[in-house]
């Protein structure tokens, strides 16, 4: 009995110690604005989680070194508390709860992926904590009426509908036939909905509509069907795995299709590692370094890419760029609100209308960014076999002309 009491008092002492020590964190301490973020540093999203974290850190350093955030005549610096959500939505929601109720964070940055953002959004909404997220593009995030969620990126349904429009345009405005293969996850299914809308809008016809399971590493059956049906466009979306599997098997099976459009080409490092196999693939991207948007902190895409490469040793994927942009949005909102009141900051966020190196940012009532179109780039290779991503659509930002139709394998 005595022992039990000792253990009990020891445990309660520990609990008290912990609860007091964490409360000493708060949202704005001294000259620091503390933001919270649950990020996938381990688990299946860890590589993109790290891209996200690098993007956040890069922007924090840059803003802090260029004068910080000015609110009420005082200068503040950004600081971020990170937790590892292990790529697990449940864990992410718990951590959001912990950041807000224990660590006292009053402003949040988003996690990586739509699934995890979906898990966190109800929590931030419940506490009225403004969250600027940069990596959750699923359409369903923006139809729930969330008031405190702001996404700097274009929603998922806009990823590939441009490709269908482009195919129709190349077909002299006549409808086209479309083969689709999409993974069964929130993001890819949203991309699919966007493509379906575009098919309907243009009077086109879908001839194959395959759903890829998440364990998939073989899509030969889909590609055999594509060979048989000869569609005008093949659209594939299944994260990095889908992009890699498709590129490998399309090349091996010599599948000829006039237009191949995909997502996640840059995450899959197609042009760098798979060279000629990936040639002519069209890829949807939130951002590309050659875009000519500008801001005062990172100047433009090329400068951002160079600075990022210097700091982290690799070319920034769009996941990093959009994450950096999230911090610029926060800074801008704090200064316009001129306050740390959550409601005022939220209203300032909702009124955001700015240009960053990543693109224009203006939020719709649902929270998605409506001012930044998706870009399509095409993998283009020179004679030495060196391949690069070149922006081909929309035409305003294009740095190269679309190659259409894709040459047959027998002629390459």
């Amino acid at each position, binding site marked *: 009995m005595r022992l039990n009491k000792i253990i009990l008092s020891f445990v309660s002492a520990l609990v008290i110690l912990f609860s007091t020590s964490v409360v000493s964190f708060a949202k704005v301490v001294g000259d620091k604005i503390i933001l919270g973020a649950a990020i996938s540093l381990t*688990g299946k999203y860890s*590589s993109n989680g790290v891209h996200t974290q690098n993007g956040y850190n890069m922007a924090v350093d840059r803003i802090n070194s260029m004068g910080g955030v000015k609110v009420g005549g005082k200068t503040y610096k950004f600081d971020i508390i990170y937790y590892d959500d292990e*790529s697990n939505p449940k864990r992410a929601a718990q951590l959001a709860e912990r950041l807000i109720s224990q660590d006292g964070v009053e402003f949040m940055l988003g996690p990586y992926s739509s699934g995890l953002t979906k898990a966190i959004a109800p929590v931030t909404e419940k506490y009225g904590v403004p969250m600027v997220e940069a990596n959750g593009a699923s359409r369903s995030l923006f139809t729930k009426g969330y008031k405190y969620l702001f996404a700097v990126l274009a929603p998922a349904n806009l990823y590939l509908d441009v490709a269908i429009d482009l195919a129709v345009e190349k077909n002299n405005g006549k409808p086209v036939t479309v083969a689709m293969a999409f993974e069964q996850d929130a993001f890819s299914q949203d991309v699919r909905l966007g493509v379906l809308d575009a098919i309907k809008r243009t009077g086109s016809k879908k001839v194959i509509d395959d759903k890829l399971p998440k*364990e*998939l590493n073989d899509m030969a059956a889909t590609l*055999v069907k594509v060979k048989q049906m000869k569609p005008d466009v093949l659209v594939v979306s299944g994260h*990095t795995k889908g992009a890699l599997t498709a590129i*490998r098997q399309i090349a091996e*099976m010599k599948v000829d299709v006039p237009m191949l459009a995909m997502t996640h080409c840059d995450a899959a490092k197609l042009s760098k590692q798979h060279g000629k*196999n990936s040639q002519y693939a069209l890829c949807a991207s939130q951002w590309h370094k050659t875009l000519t948007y500008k801001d005062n902190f990172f100047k433009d895409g090329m400068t951002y890419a160079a600075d990022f490469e210097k700091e982290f040793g690799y070319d920034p994927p769009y996941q990093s760029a959009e994450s950096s942009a999230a911090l610029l949005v926060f800074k801008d909102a704090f200064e316009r609100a001129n306050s740390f009141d959550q409601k005022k900051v939220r209203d300032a966020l909702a009124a955001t209308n700015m240009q960053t190196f990543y693109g224009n940012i203006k939020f719709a009532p649902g929270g998605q960014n409506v001012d930044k179109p998706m870009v399509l780039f095409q993998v283009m290779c020179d004679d030495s076999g060196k391949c690069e991503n070149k922006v081909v659509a929309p035409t305003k930002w294009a740095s190269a002309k679309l190659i259409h139709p894709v040459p047959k394998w027998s002629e390459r």
Partner: protein
Amino acid sequence: MDFMVFQYPMITVQACLDGILLGILFALIAYGMALQWGVMNIINIAQGDLVILGGYIAYFMYLYGIHPAWGVIVAPVIMYFLGVLIYKLVINKVVDRDLFISILATFGISILFMQLMNFAFGADVVLANSDYGTTMLFNDNVVLPNSKLFSAFISILFAICLVIYMKKSKLGRAIRATAQNARAAKILGVDTEKVYAATFGINAALCGVAGALISITFTIHPYMGLPYTIRSFMIVIVAGLGNLPGVAMSGMGLGVFEEFADYILGTEFRIGSVFLLLVLILVYRRFKLSRKREYLK
């Protein structure tokens, strides 16, 4: 439901060939599992993770500029020693316990491996390009990537070598003797401990070969092991232990079944149909395979 696969004879041929080539690869993994199951009565849940690890070995050779096909020689060597190490560290402590404990232990190893691979190699999906080209048959209507032909050929080669080894070599005979009757083998001077370690090592080596072939033919990812475990488990259940032709046949059968399920039910049900088939077979066989445990320390 889509019966396109039967409407065009060429697609039927394509599906059958794809399935058979894939099935041969599955059979190789299943053969390792059958061997170890038969000898030690251990169902190795980490089978698929060993496969993926073998794949990463080939992938890293590819990254460093060595043709990934050499992986089918390097991966089994490394994996053999890793297998022996796992045996010494974990398996020999659970091999004399009941089946449930050994399943739990290998399940633990599986989780550990997944996380370690994720930690060491990252969560990206990777593949090793072989640049083997493509074989076109029947007027270009049937396409067979040479990498698939290569992996089927290598799988058969390794299976034949293993069969000969088991028949002719001293260790092979000792393994077979232990599988038949461990007690008698031990009385007659077989070092059963060594046999168990070698068996686990050989199984890991086979997984290594299969993994290298998968990284050349498909893609690999730290969390992709489980479907391979399930497939080999199923092949072994259908074929029975110690029945190599049976393993080969049921491997190919499963490959063809998967391809047809893919065409008819849709790609999303491909892996699901394998799981469903497993349940049906288990019900049908009513766990006939639960053998009497025979382990001697």
